[in-house]
């Protein structure tokens, strides 16, 4: 009964004019960002953050979350019609989605992607409601050792799931911790590594850092290349809504995708990208005709698209119930809450029910809006894709400049953005990924605070982390994950030894 009451309350909050408007803007901007190359959800969220200073934290969260899950819808459109994913979350959709479009089933592929995303988004919302509140209540009993261990686990999982070298990902996480330590020390209140620069007293801003590492880096990479215009596949968009038979064929793919996305979305670092890949692999595995994957299989579109949307929804769980952001986008949401004077953590849902339940209501609303608005607007998104790069890139650069500057009205933030933009551009050439850095940058100060508090409580005894069950289990997982990196090395050694024998 309580749950029903809360859902109704959530819808009341979500339907307030300002919240409804921000939800609509969020999902539309998200779709646009998903379609456009060169600016990702992090950049878009950072850009619109200053515009939310005059509205409530609930409206802010609704807007930013709308961008986040709207991106997945936009990304699938370009994957299917152009064979170029607007976002990394839709990379795998290219394989079968584009083939479906080539065979004259572009409308069906888009309809399946949108419908699957809607169903998965709804399932993730239900999961969010069911899991977040009990988890937050449980987390009230957590102390600094548990938080320290959980954050360690989060960081290690992020680095473990790195697309390239795990060693480099760990190095980036450490750099993130070091960058996060710049500013006033949390316990003594004294400046640390500020080099006497007043602007660094509050630390390096998350917005210029994210915009630099994601937005500017991407633009620099494109400027350096040939800047070829994408060729839009001219398909007649008809029969956008799949038939009953199509739905029946894809129902298990959608359900499996939703489940995979929901579970992986909660895990730090995994999120929508990995879940879409895992979902595709599972669909191929369970299919009676795995050899047909890549030639235009409906399940190859429905599964991954459901997975990435479910993951986008469930990623909110650790942020809202534990105060631990599982990925860089959630780190931006975390920062937005801090800017609005709210502390993400177990007390957030209890102390600000309007924020949590309003967000839940907006997630239902936003998913529905995406479904209603996006399919008829597909023609417009295709036109957006045809905007020449020579117009697009200066504009995206200008948006980045505005986003970074208007947060504090400081040119210093622009310098920070350019510095990290250049660093990110060079780092990519050397095979370093920015995601672990961003997450460690956010978690670093919290990690340090909890470690120092734990050691103060235990009078310097590290056993405090092993005598508490949750922290012991989390640290055990950390050790297992780190040791598992040695397995390929040991296997190679063994093979060499056996060959030698």
């Amino acid at each position, binding site marked *: 009964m309580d749950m029903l009451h809360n859902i109704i309350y959530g819808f009341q909050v979500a339907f307030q004019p300002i919240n409804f408007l921000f939800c609509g803007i969020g999902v539309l901007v998200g779709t646009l960002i998903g379609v456009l190359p060169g600016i990702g959800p992090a950049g878009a969220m950072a850009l619109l953050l*200053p*515009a939310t*200073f*005059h509205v409530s934290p609930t409206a802010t969260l609704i807007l930013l979350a709308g961008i986040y899950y709207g991106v997945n819808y936009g990304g699938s459109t370009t994957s299917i019609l152009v064979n170029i994913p607007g976002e990394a979350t839709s990379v795998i959709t290219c394989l079968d989605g584009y083939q479906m479009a080539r065979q004259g089933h572009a409308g069906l592929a888009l309809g399946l992607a949108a419908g699957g995303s809607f169903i998965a988004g709804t399932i993730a919302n239900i999961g969010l409601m069911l899991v977040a509140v009990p988890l937050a209540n449980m987390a009230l009993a957590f102390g600094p050792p548990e938080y320290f261990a959980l954050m360690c686990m989060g960081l290690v999982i992020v680095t473990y799931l790195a697309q390239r070298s795990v*060693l*480099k990902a*760990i*190095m980036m996480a*450490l*750099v993130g*911790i*070091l960058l996060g*330590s710049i500013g006033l*020390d949390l*316990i*003594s209140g*004294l400046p*640390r*590594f500020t080099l006497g620069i007043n602007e660094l007293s509050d630390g390096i801003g998350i917005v210029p850092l994210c915009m630099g590492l994601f937005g500017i880096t991407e633009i*620099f990479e494109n*400027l*350096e*290349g*040939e*800047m070829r215009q994408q060729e839009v596949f001219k398909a007649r968009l008809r029969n956008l809504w799949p038939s009953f038979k199509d739905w029946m064929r894809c129902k298990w793919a959608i359900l499996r995708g939703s489940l995979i996305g929901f579970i992986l979305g909660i895990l730090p670092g995994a999120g929508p990208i990995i879940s879409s890949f895992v979902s595709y692999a599972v669909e191929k595995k369970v299919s009676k005709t795995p050899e047909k994957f890549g030639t235009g299989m409906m399940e190859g579109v429905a599964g991954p698209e459901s997975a990435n949307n479910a993951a986008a929804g469930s990623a909110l769980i650790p942020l809202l119930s534990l105060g631990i952001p599982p990925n860089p986008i959630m780190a931006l949401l975390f920062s937005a809450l801090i800017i609005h004077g709210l502390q993400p953590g177990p007390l957030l849902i209890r102390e600000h029910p309007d924020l949590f339940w309003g967000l839940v209501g907006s997630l239902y609303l936003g998913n529905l809006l995406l479904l209603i608005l996006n399919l008829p607007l597909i023609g417009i998104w295709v036109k957006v894709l045809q905007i020449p*790069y*020579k*117009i697009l*890139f*200066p*504009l995206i*650069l*200008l*948006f980045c*400049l*505005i986003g970074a*500057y*208007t947060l504090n*009205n400081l*040119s210093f933030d*622009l*310098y920070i953005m*350019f510095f990290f*933009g*250049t660093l990110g*551009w060079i780092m990519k*050439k*050397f*095979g*370093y990924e920015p995601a672990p850095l961003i997450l460690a940058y956010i978690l*670093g100060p919290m*990690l*340090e605070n909890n*470690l*120092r508090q734990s*050691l*103060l409580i235990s*009078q*310097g005894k*590290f056993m405090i982390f092993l005598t508490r069950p949750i922290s012991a289990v989390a640290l055990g997982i950390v050790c297992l994950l780190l040791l598992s990196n040695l397995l390929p090395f040991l296997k190679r050694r063994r093979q060499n030894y056996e060959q030698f024998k």
Partner: protein
Amino acid sequence: MKALELASSLFWLLVSLVFIAASVRLGTGSVHNPGMGFITFWAAGILGLLSLGLFVKALFEKEVLSPDEPLFGKTWPRTAIVLALLIVYSVFMPKLGYLISTFVLMSLLFWILEKGKIGFVLLYAALSTFVTYQVFSKWLNCQFPDGFFGF
């Protein structure tokens, strides 16, 4: 590839050494009473060790990439010019104001990408400057600097 790995590992080793020295100066404290430089000392220390590990790994690894693959793309000077323009813009924007400095920046950016079409460049630069000013400054209440000229 090997040279890149060696160079990048040495760079991060240097960064770690700088942070270790700074952490020691701040005071690492003890396990019973961790100081301001405690966690940064350990983080920088591990970073240094991993950088060394990467250096050694790269040193003994066989070269796998063809040497003719360039590190930077053909048009990298264009990126360098854009970066320089952006830095100059950041310095002069508070003094010249948003409208003038942004118009100049956008004109130059459009010109770099679409050389020769002055009409196109000026039109798009003016449009992008005024539309963003209207949307962000007037509608969304973001504050832009007025500069010497008051606009």
